[in-house]
């Protein structure tokens, strides 16, 4: 998820390579040259390193196989990218088979799920590949029928010569097409979007029919002959080192085959923490044997790393001068002092866990210096790098199979479980091993969304306009660099929209591992900033949507500092106006105990404005309805998946706020362990959700994340509207009346 996707539109021209499929038919590889100086253009590769972005094969029987190279984590990419290829190819979706690619750096380049990046990156290359394959098939048919290609039309995988009433199936000319030179992809004619017949049509996920029958497709379902099941016991506290382990009793436990103390590489952040591996014939037996381990740990590294200590430190830091300014526009100090009205408030939010439904797991086999791995990972190639670093086994000696992931949310951007599984497998050469984390392991060794604290100040002018804005952010880091996913976003609205602004930051160290969680950065920053701006709007005698529309001003692009993504005020305005219209914002009525709140946010290239209606009785909050207006560009590739993603993101956000989610530490020991102490959304929490798309004329972008950030502040603002109580801390904890 983090970092934000690299800028779209970098000129990387697709190159096509055609070949004859084994057994006849056309195989078309689409290669995209890697950008100059790409880190992984290793020595020994061709002069122009290229990644295969798509692979299409048309067999003599007309079957079209499209390879899906990216990990599937529930975001629907295994369905939506092939839909783009198939539409331009002009075949029938029922002819299409999807194959999941193995991990192969040299061949496929980046294979990645995160940052809502895939649609942005691959939209054009996928279309060009499909269109090029179609053009080759048409040319082959023209040769066969001895007519001009321009006289031919296509549809549902057939080529028609209307004048003579003749037609050919794609399969019939596929082998002949393989010997034709592929066209220049940048010149190949593309469909008019009005003619799309697969893109934009609700389409069932390609694995769905297997899922409803319980077929084995997830990482945890991997079964290898002679496989042993493993658990990996680590220190109770972060950074704990193994002093000594008495494994005799565990060794004698039922079903146990091996008990192996493991020394980490000292870099517990990349995953090879010290620990003890237990291998048994059944995972439950391995897990039961943990209780028989007698281990002495050195937990001194985590002493003092407690939530209460973090909070006290943050309160002291936030009252002091910021350690550094991140962005200063105009003269915020003077303008805040001169303001007619000043508003100030502090906000904070806790660490939270990803808790994907499928716990971390990985199967591995080590034999003759070679590793074979089956992993549910969002970043398999990063996994290869980490494996080399931790175990000294290079990518040339690793074969990595991607499995479907039972949810990601950013957790599987990290590959700690893969390193552990590989280390265990290496300790028992020839024996396939499946490491499975218990839910408790998963909850206690996450790369959490880090907690944070904000001290905001705003200055309002004589006409109720926002003239100055400041935020002092207290986060985690080593004093120079924030911890992973603990950084600030200096482009966060209202930056660029108010003349005088200061964003500043102070940091404290942590031993806890942090990382990206769905809409990283934005998920927390949206809550703090949009809730505070609601306070500002009310103090200025207006409401938040009106304040936002005033701030946005004319339609224009506000450039982001560095090479960040420019912010289009027109697109923001359109989604805000849309959500106000569909929710009937201007005619909303105030009722005691029931209110509506609004928020807007821009993240991962998506523009979302949301309205929440909630009622409050005592300390209980009920969400009745959520209205969502979003702009992710000109096309929703698969509306079936898109709607599901938006609903999921909205409910995810509501659960972060309302279910009581917070991860807490005492001397580096995580206090939560399972779904009772870290609750997730359940069906009764689910409100009605109404979604409206604003289709701007921009290239389509991803949807895994941007619908989440606005819902939390919209909820907090609704609670204020209902009760007059301002939620300045997550999770929401209201006092019982």
């Amino acid at each position, binding site marked *: 998820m983090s970092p934000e996707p690299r800028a779209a539109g970098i000129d990387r021209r697709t190159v096509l390579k055609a070949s004859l499929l084994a057994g006849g038919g056309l195989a078309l590889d689409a290669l995209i040259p890697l950008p100059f100086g790409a880190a992984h253009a290793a020595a020994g590769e061709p002069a122009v390193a290229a990644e295969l972005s798509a692979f299409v094969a048309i067999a003599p029987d007309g079957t079209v196989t499209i390879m899906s190279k990216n990990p599937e*984590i*529930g*975001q*629907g990419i295994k369905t939506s990218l092939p839909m783009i290829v198939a539409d331009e190819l002009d075949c029938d979706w029922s002819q299409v088979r999807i194959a999941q690619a193995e991990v192969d750096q040299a061949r496929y380049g980046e294979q990645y799920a995160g940052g809502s990046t895939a649609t942005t990156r691959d939209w054009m290359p996928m279309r060009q590949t499909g269109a090029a394959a179609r053009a080759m098939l048409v040319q082959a048919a023209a040769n066969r029928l001895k007519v001009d290609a321009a006289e031919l039309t296509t549809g549902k995988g057939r080529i028609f010569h209307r004048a003579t009433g003749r037609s050919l199936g794609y399969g019939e000319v596929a082998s002949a097409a393989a010997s034709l030179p592929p066209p220049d992809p940048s010149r190949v004619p593309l469909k008019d979007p009005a003619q799309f017949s697969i893109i934009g049509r*609700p*389409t*069932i*996920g390609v*694995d*769905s*029919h297997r*899922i*409803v*029958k*319980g*077929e*084995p*497709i*997830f990482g*945890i379902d991997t*079964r290898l002959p002679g496989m042993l*099941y493993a658990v990996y016991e680590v220190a109770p506290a972060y950074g704990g080192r193994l002093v000594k382990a008495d494994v005799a009793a565990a060794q004698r436990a*039922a079903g146990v085959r091996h008990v192996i103390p493991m020394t980490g590489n000292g870099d517990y952040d990349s995953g090879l923490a010290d620990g003890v591996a237990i291998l048994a014939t*059944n*995972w*439950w*037996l391995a897990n039961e044997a943990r209780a028989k381990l007698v281990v002495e740990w050195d937990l001194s590294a985590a002493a003092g790393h407690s939530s209460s200590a973090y909070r006290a430190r943050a309160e002291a830091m936030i009252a002091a001068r910021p350690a550094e300014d991140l962005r200063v526009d105009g003269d915020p100090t003077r303008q805040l002092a001169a303001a007619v009205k000043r508003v100030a408030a502090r906000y904070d939010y806790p660490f939270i866990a990803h*808790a*994907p*439904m*499928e*716990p971390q797991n990985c199967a591995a086999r080590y034999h003759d210096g070679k590793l074979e791995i089956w992993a549910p990972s969002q970043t398999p190639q990063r996994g290869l790098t980490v494996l080399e670093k931790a175990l000294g086994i290079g990518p040339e000696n690793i074969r990595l199979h991607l499995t*479907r*992931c*039972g*949810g*990601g*949310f950013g957790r599987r951007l990290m590959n700690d479980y893969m390193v552990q599984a590989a280390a265990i497998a290496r300790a028992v050469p020839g024996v396939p091993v499946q490491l*499975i984390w*218990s*839910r408790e392991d998963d909850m206690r060794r996450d790369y959490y969304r880090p907690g944070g604290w904000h001290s905001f100040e705003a200055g309002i002018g004589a006409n109720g306009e926002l003239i100055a804005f400041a935020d002092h952010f207290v986060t985690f880091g080593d004093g120079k660099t924030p911890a992973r996913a603990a950084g600030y976003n200096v482009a966060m609205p209202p930056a660029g929209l108010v003349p005088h602004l200061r964003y500043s930051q102070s940091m404290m160290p942590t031993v806890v591992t942090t990382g990206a969680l769905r809409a990283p950065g934005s998920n927390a920053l949206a809550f703090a900033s949009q809730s505070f701006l609601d306070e500002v709007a009310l103090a200025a005698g207006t409401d938040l949507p009106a304040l936002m529309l005033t701030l946005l001003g004319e339609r224009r692009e506000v450039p982001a500092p560095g090479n960040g993504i420019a912010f289009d005020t027109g697109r923001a305005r359109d989604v805000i106006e849309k959500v106000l219209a569909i929710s009937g914002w201007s005619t909303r009525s105030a009722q005691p105990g029931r209110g509506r709140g609004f928020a807007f946010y821009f993240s991962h290239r998506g523009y979302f404005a949301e309205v929440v209606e909630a009622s409050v009785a005592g300390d209980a909050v009920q969400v009745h309805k959520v209205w969502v207006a979003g702009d992710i560009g000109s096309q929703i590739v698969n509306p*079936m998946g898109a*709607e*599901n993603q938006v*609903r*999921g993101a909205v*409910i*995810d956000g509501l*659960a972060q706020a309302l279910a009581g989610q917070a991860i807490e530490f005492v001397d580096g020991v995580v206090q939560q362990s*399972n*779904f*009772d102490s870290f609750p*997730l*959304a*359940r*069906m*009764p*929490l*689910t409100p009605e*959700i109404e979604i409206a798309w604003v289709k701007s004329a921009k290239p389509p972008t991803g949807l895994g994340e941007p619908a989440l950030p606005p819902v939390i502040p919209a909820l907090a603002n609704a609670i204020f509207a209902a009760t007059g109580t301002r939620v300045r801390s997550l999770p929401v904890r209201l006092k019982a009346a």
Partner: protein
Amino acid sequence: MGYRLEINGAVHEVDVPAEMPLLWVLRDELGLVGTKYGCGRGLCGACTVHVDGAAQRSCLLRVGSLGKAKIRTIEQIGATEIGARLQRAWLEIDVMQCGYCQAGQIMTACALLSRTSQPSDAEINAAMTGNICRCACYHRIRSAIRTAAGVEEAGHVA
């Protein structure tokens, strides 16, 4: 200990400790991996199976307590009339995102429809509240149950 278990109409013999939960007998002894591990403590419903027709959390069912019970898992739920209807409804509106929880959801929904052929929304909420979907496909789960029960046409998701 040796146990004879009737699962999906076939008898399986396993040699495991009496305390081993049925979940791990299914997954690691018999290779029936459709039944999923989510929490191991009865909190998520991912491991739901039918024991004599009733939805049960297999992570809490000790194999020694099963006796002659008839067990059915997701792999064979399509052989029941209600199970097949639910699978069809699940596909018609493509309920799932990651899909990991869905076996448990379908098993719980199937037990609900066997008891209450036309459940109200409140009854659906009550029956399904023990099944977590981290991807939060709850609207579609509810809608698919309604569709399978014949109280709603496919495609409507509120």
